[in-house]
C-alpha cells in the first residue's frame, strides 16, 4: 500500500499526493499518510493490520467489510480512507475486551452461527449496530437488519439464533 502508515511505510518513491488522516479506531487514535483513492477497508487491513475486517465483493453487497462508523454500520470497501479522517471506527477487534468476549461473539459460538468465518466479523458488527438500537429484536427484524451481509455457509438460521442469544444475555445483564 502506498504510504499507508507513517511508522510502517514512510513516504514511498511515487509522486502521488498523500494526505494525513487520523482515525479513532477501537478507542485508539491512529494516523497514516494515504493516497486520496485508498479505500478505508484497505487502510484498516493493511495499514493498521486489523485483518478481521474482510473484503469479499468490492461492490458493497457482501458486508464482510462492515465496520461501525461513528456507531453506524458502513461497508468500509466503499468508503475512502480520507473520508474517515477525524471519525470513530470500530472493527471486530474492538468487540472483546482483554478478558471478556462480547455477548454477540459468545452467541455466534454457542449457536454455531459461523462455519468458514469469513462473513462473521461483518455479521457481528451489523448485529451490534442492531442491538445498540433495538435491544429486543424479533426474528424478522434481525433478518432484515442482516440482509446487507451475505453468508454462504450457514443458511442464516443459526446466525439469527446467535443474535437472539446475545440479545437475551445483554438484557439479562442489564436487568441484574
Amino acid at each position, binding site marked *: 500500500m502506498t504510504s499507508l502508515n507513517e511508522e510502517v511505510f514512510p513516504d514511498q518513491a511515487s509522486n502521488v499526493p498523500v494526505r494525513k488522516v487520523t482515525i479513532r479506531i477501537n478507542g485508539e487514535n491512529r494516523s497514516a499518510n494515504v493516497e486520496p483513492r485508498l479505500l478505508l477497508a484497505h487502510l484498516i487491513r493493511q495499514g493498521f*493490520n486489523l485483518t478481521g475486517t474482510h473484503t*469479499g465483493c468490492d461492490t458493497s453487497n457482501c458486508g464482510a467489510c462492515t465496520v461501525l462508523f461513528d456507531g453506524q454500520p458502513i461497508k468500509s470497501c466503499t468508503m475512502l480512507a480520507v473520508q474517515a479522517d477525524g471519525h470513530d471506527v470500530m472493527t471486530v477487534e474492538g468487540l472483546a475486551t482483554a478478558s471478556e468476549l462480547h455477548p454477540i461473539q459468545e452467541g455466534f*459460538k454457542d449457536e454455531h452461527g459461523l462455519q*468458514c468465518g*469469513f462473513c462473521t466479523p461483518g455479521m457481528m458488527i451489523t448485529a451490534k449496530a442492531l442491538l445498540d438500537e433495538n435491544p429486543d429484536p424479533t426474528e424478522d427484524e434481525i433478518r432484515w437488519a442482516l440482509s*446487507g451481509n451475505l453468508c454462504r455457509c450457514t443458511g442464516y*438460521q443459526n446466525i*439469527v439464533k446467535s443474535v437472539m442469544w446475545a440479545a437475551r444475555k445483554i438484557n439479562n445483564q442489564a436487568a441484574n
Partner: protein
Amino acid sequence: MSLDEIKIGGMGASRRRVEDNRFIRGKGNYVDDIVLPGMLHMEILRSPLAHARIKSIDTSKAWAIPGVRLVMTGEMMASRNLAWMPTLSYDTQAVLATDKVRFQGQEVACVIADDPYIAKDACEAIVVDYEPLPVIVNPIQAMAPGAPLIRDDKENQHDNVVFDWEVGDKDGTEKAFAQADVVSKLELHYPRSHPSPLETCGSIADFDRATSKLTVYMTTQAPHIIRAAVAMVAELPEHMIRIVSPDLGGGFGNKVPVYPGYVASILASILLERPVKWIEDKTGNLISTGFGRDVYLRGEMALRKDGKILGVRMHTDSDHGAFFSDAQPSKFKIGLMHSAFACYDIPAAHLTARGMYTNKAPGGVAYRCSFRVTEAMFFQERMVQAAADDLGMDQAEFRRLNFVRDEDFPHRTAFGFLTDSGQYAKCLDVGLEAIGYKDFLKQKEEAKKRGRLLGIGISTMTEPLGAGNSREYDILGIKMFDSAELRVHMSGKAILRTGAKSQGQGHETTWAQIVAHELGIPADDITVEEGDTDTAPFGMGTYASRSTPVAGAAVAMVSRKIRAKARKLAAHLLEVSEEDVEWELGRFYVRSSPDRGVTIQDCANAAYSNMPDGLEPGLENTAYYDPPNLTWPFACYIATVEVDPETGVWDVLNVVAVDDCGVRINPMIVEGQIMGGLTEAYAMASMQFITFDAEGNCVGSNYMDYLLPTAWETPGFELHEVVTPCPHHPIGAKGIGECATVGGPAAFVNAVMDALKGTGVRNIDMPLLPDRVYEAFTTRRDISGMPPVKTED
C-alpha cells in the same frame, strides 16, 4: 469406571467449535491476511472478449509506471514452456493467452508491483489489439455444422466435442421401453451456477533462491494435489515445494482446481526472488474460476400402469467452457452423473453424455457436490415427479413403490453402483409426518377453490459420497485415499494431522471427537492441524463430502493403532500379559481385577519414560485409509410453497429435511451443514445463476447481477434424522456436507410445479424467477432455459 463420552467431547457431543475462538475475534488467518517481508503484489489483466485472436500486446506503458517490477504475457510464459498447463481432466488450459482468448475473463497478462493499486493501474496501461471471432455460448451452437473451432491449439481436435460417453445397458433399456405402458418424457436445463465462496482465490508464492525451496500460501481445498501439479507444471522437485492452505473463506469446490493466477504468481516469485501475492477480485472469481452445472437433459422413463419404473434413458449435453478442467475422477467423463436413480429399484438404465467446448469460463467443479451428482439427483427427482403426474399417482406413493427396500441391501443399481444401507421408506414417512402431508393436500384443495395456488414438492435421493475406493477413483492418476497422523505426547495430550482441509466444516472440532471416542483422551487435549504439505500426511483434500468418509475413517484407524500400542504399555505397567488387559473408554484394566487399571495418559507417559524392553519408544502413528466403497447417505426434502398467480412470486411456507447420514460425530455441525446446503438449494431454485449474452459477456460478474439469497429471503428449515450406520465405515458415518444442495433444488421446483398442476405447465427451468413462473402460468406453457436450436448469426 468408564468415562462419560459426551463430557470429554466424544462422538455424539454437540461440542462447540474450537476454530471459532479465532474467527469470532477477527483473528482468522486467511491468505490475504498473510504479509511477508518484501512482498510484491500481482494483478491479472483479463480478456474483455469471449473469442478473439490476439494481434499484439503492448506493455511499454505499464513498464513505465513507477513501482512496476514485472509485466508478464503469454509470449514470455511460452519462452519458459509455461503458457499452457494440464487440467485435472487431462486437457490443457492457457496460463496466459498466446494465440487467442477463448472466454471473457481469460488471463492475458500480469503485472507485479510494489502495491496492488499500482499493479491495477499498470494493467490498465497494457494495450491489447484483438481481432474478434464468432462466439459460441451453448452446446447447440457448438455442435452446429460450420461452428468455429474453439480449441484450434489441439492437434487432433476437429470439432468442439470434448467427449462422447455412455454407460448402462442399452439393449436392456430398449426392451424395457418396448414393454412400457407409459413413457414419461422431460427436457431440462440445470443452469450454470458459481460456488462463490465469499473469499476469492489467491496465493502468495515465496521462492527462496538460497535454499531453492518454493513455499506457496494459497486458497486450496487439496494442498497435496496442488503440490503434485506444481511439481509437474513448474518442473520443481516435490521436496522443494511446500503448499500451505491457511484458513479458507469457504470453498464449495471452487478452490480445488489449479488456476492461472497461482502459476503466474509462482513464476513471478522465482523470477523476482521476492514473495508475490495475488488476490483475485470478485469479478475475476465469478467470470474465470470453476463454475458448477450447465447441463441439458433429455430424460425418458418407461413405466408400467401400476407405477413400477421399468427403465430410464438419459441423454445429457454439458457445456464445459473453453478448457475441460472439470474436477472429477479421471475415468468418469461426466462425473458421477450415472448415480442417478440409485435409491430406486430399476431393472435397466442407459445414459449417453456429450460434453462440448464453448466460449465460456472453464471448470465444471463439484459445487457442493460429488462430481455432477447434483445434476443427476435433480434430473432424477424432476423426472420422478413428472412420471407420477403422468400416471396420475400420488408423488409420495410413487416413490415408495419404487424405492429399494431395507431388506434388499446390498443393492446393485442399474448403472452399476453398489449401495449398502438405508431406510428409505422410513425417511419418507418421517418427512411426510413432519410436513403434515395429508392435511396439506386438503388445505391445497381448499385454497384452490379460493384461487390460491399451494404446492408441495418432495425430493428423495441417495448419493455416493466419499471417493475412493482407489480401484475406481483417482485424480490425475493419484488414488483417492486419505490419511491421518496422531502424535500422543508424554502428558497424554496430542496433535492430529490429516490429509483433508477444512474450509468451514469444523475439522479441528470433529476430528478430535473421533480420537476422544477411540482413545478416551478429552477432545480439548487434542490439537488438529491441516493444510501444510510439509507436515500433514499425504491426502486428497476436502471436497465431494469425502472428509468424514475417508480422512475421518483414517482418524479412527490411527487412533486404533495408538490404542494397540498403548495396550502393550498398559500390560507392562500392570505387570500382566497383554491378553489379560481389557479396554474401556480411556482406561486399560486387569480382566480379573477391574480396579487395577491405568489410564491412556499413564500409557502415554510410559511410552516416553518407562517402556518395556524391546518395545519401540514413543506413541505416534499414521494411517492411510482406502475405503472399500462409497458411503450412501439418504435424504428426503419436502417443501411447501404458495405461488402468487398475479406476479409469479412464490413464497416458501415450510421446509422439512430428513437426513440419514449414519452416525453423527457432532450433531450441531451436521445440522449446520444441512441448513447451509438447503440455502444453496433454495438459491439455485429461486435466483442464483450465471448466464451469458450472445457475445459471450458474462451476465452475473458481480454480486449486483449474481443474486445470492440473504437472511431476508432464506426460509427457515425444520430438520429430522434417521440413523442407518454405514456398514463399512469404522465409526458408521456417511458423508453429509453436500446432501441438501444436491437433493434440495428438486424439492423447491417440484413444489412450484405442483402448485401449477392442472394448468398444463410441465416444467419451468431454474431459477424459478417470478417472471418465468408468471409467464408459464399465464401462457400455460413450459419455460425452457434451452437455447434456440438454430444458431444465431
